[in-house]
């Protein structure tokens, strides 16, 4: 009898323990949750509330108005800058995707030795300041920069070109290089988890490498593609340092306008309003990514 009773009581204890465990986990939550609320959610709400206020010289009028949004939608400048910013973000995302995919595939599927080291090299640039990396591009593309010296030495040009720096190309190059690791890492993760047997099965069933890529590898790495694209797209969308340091006079981006309104022009309400389209764009992207990412999860 006792031998029958013993496991039963053990089961009871085990059941009680497993019921108690989630309760313990709740204790971990207040810290991070408080942090997120006070340093993320509250400032965001404050920011959004500002969008519905106005400024009278230097004082902020705390009365509800849609004036800022009217300005945003009717003023050509803002829409042009927004369009330019979104286009830049899209092109940079696409470029990084094209650069990162082969690299991530190689790392995940071909490299067997020194994998961690190579992956570390991908992350390595992220350990230096972003500002430094942007300045590095300035020294490369500048009038007396490395690119010009090289082209002069080789004899391709006989005068230092000024066209490299302060241009959309300069911004594109910098963005693509600086955000590349954010694309490589999620792609590496999905490709690393993609079983080789799927690729072999496709080949076994008569698919040449291109069709294998299109019908098996690409759809199964969609969650990684979307995660990486989301990072690169939103990082580019909100950036104002690269346009400031490397952009030309006609290359304003929305982040720069936001910064100007919060700084020089001291128009916090308009600055806050300019953030809204960025937020909307990124939220849309997240919604799409989540939808396909979730699809990818159930599929895998």
């Amino acid at each position, binding site marked *: 009898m006792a031998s029958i009773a013993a496991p039963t009581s053990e089961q009871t204890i085990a059941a009680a323990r497993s019921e108690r465990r989630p309760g313990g986990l709740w204790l971990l939550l207040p810290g991070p949750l408080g942090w997120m609320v006070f340093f993320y959610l509250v400032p965001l709400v404050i920011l959004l509330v500002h969008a519905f206020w106005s400024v009278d010289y230097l004082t902020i009028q705390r009365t509800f108005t849609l004036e800022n949004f009217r300005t945003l939608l009717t003023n050509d400048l803002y829409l042009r800058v927004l369009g330019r910013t979104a286009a830049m973000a899209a092109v940079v995302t696409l470029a990084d995707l094209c650069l990162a995919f082969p690299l991530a595939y190689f790392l995940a599927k071909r490299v067997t030795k020194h994998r961690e080291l190579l992956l570390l090299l991908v992350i390595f640039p992220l350990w230096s300041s972003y500002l430094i990396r942007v300045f590095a591009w300035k020294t490369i593309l500048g009038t007396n920069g490395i690119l010009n010296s090289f082209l002069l030495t080789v004899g391709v040009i006989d005068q230092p070109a000024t066209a490299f720096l302060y241009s959309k190309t300069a911004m594109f190059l910098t963005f693509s290089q600086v955000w590349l690791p954010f694309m490589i890492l999620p792609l590496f993760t999905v490709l690393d988890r993609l079983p080789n047997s799927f690729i072999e099965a*496709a080949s076994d*069933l008569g698919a*040449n490498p291109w069709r294998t890529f299109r019908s098996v590898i690409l759809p199964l790495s969609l969650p990684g593609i979307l995660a990486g694209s989301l990072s690169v797209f939103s990082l580019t969308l909100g950036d104002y340092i690269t346009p400031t340091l490397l952009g030309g006079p006609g290359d304003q981006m929305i982040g720069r306008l936001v910064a100007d309104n919060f700084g020089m022009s001291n128009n916090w309400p308009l600055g806050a309003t300019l953030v809204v389209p960025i937020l909307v764009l990124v939220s849309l992207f997240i919604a799409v990514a989540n939808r396909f990412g979730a699809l990818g999860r159930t599929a895998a």
Partner: protein
Amino acid sequence: MAQALMTETPVRADAGRFGGTPSIELRDVSKFFGQVPAVSGISLEVRQGEFLTLLGPSGCGKTTTLRMIGGFELPSAGEIVIEGEAMGDRPPYRRPVNTVFQNYALFPHMTVGQNVSYGLEMTGVPKPERQRRVAEALDMVRLPHVENRKPAELSGGQQQRVALARALVNRPAVLLLDEPLGALDLKLRKTMQLELKQLNREVGATFVYVTHDQEEALTMSDRIAVMNEGRILQLGTPGDIYERPRTRFVADFIGQTNFLEVEVIGSDGAAVEVDLPGSGPLRARPPEGVPAQGTMTLAVRPEKISLMADLPGSEIPGWDRLSGRLEEIIYVGTYTQYVLRLPGGQELAVHRQNRAVGEGEHPMGETLTVVFNPQSAALLAD
């Protein structure tokens, strides 16, 4: 555990259907991974429609061999010929071969129907025919009405059938199967073994099957190639392999075997006389391919040995006879394993069928006399 088969090599009823050019030919094929040899110069001919099993422990090179036939690995040396065509470095998608992978490798983002029609789509089969053949293939593996489901919604056994349908729908000349039943439970595995064998007969494709499960190999194969350390040790019918193992490894890997070290005394053509230290002279079947001389290993399977007390007549002329002390009794259900300690210190396992409940039980420590036919006792060189 495989049950006692006939002592004579069983002639398979379907042995006559093989013929013509071999389906697959391996000519002195080797594969090195860096400096490590995985396959060391194997040659093999697989006949049309044959069910051939590559059997061996993990790391013996059986999977590498299969992958070389499929084109997933290229041989470091040697040649692979499929249906009369040298494969060279042809990629998998240009070989008349389809594979059932160990973990099925069904595409998770496609439905069962899309999975099965994938191969047909790649070879440009028009849609109406594709739909018809997919339905046929799923019927063949007895899995209708699942076309619109995702693989993840199916059980392991069902996924296995989908993987089979996905390969067979392309009507390959050769079907490669890489331990396809490994993930299934015992009952399902037994059912699938029979179904695979049946499919092999129905579709007429050559099946090359990789497994480390000796019973699976014995049940399904027309021929078995026993592999170890990158070489084929013995190639033959299941009866051949089981009843006439040529090396100690083969005898040991397939089924259970007693190994006794003996000295050869003489030979009278039909049998070799040997001396088992402590027990005296015994007669054994002459070895194949090696001379009977010096110290050799006598291999005799436990189920070939009978207790003297169980036999109706007291003595069978010409049979070998040993006596030992009963040291261990293991009840296994269909039979009981007795372990005897022979006078020379050797152990001898004997399987005694449990014919009737409570029949003639023997106490531990009792001295038992056992007999076996000398033709069941193989002499091995190693």
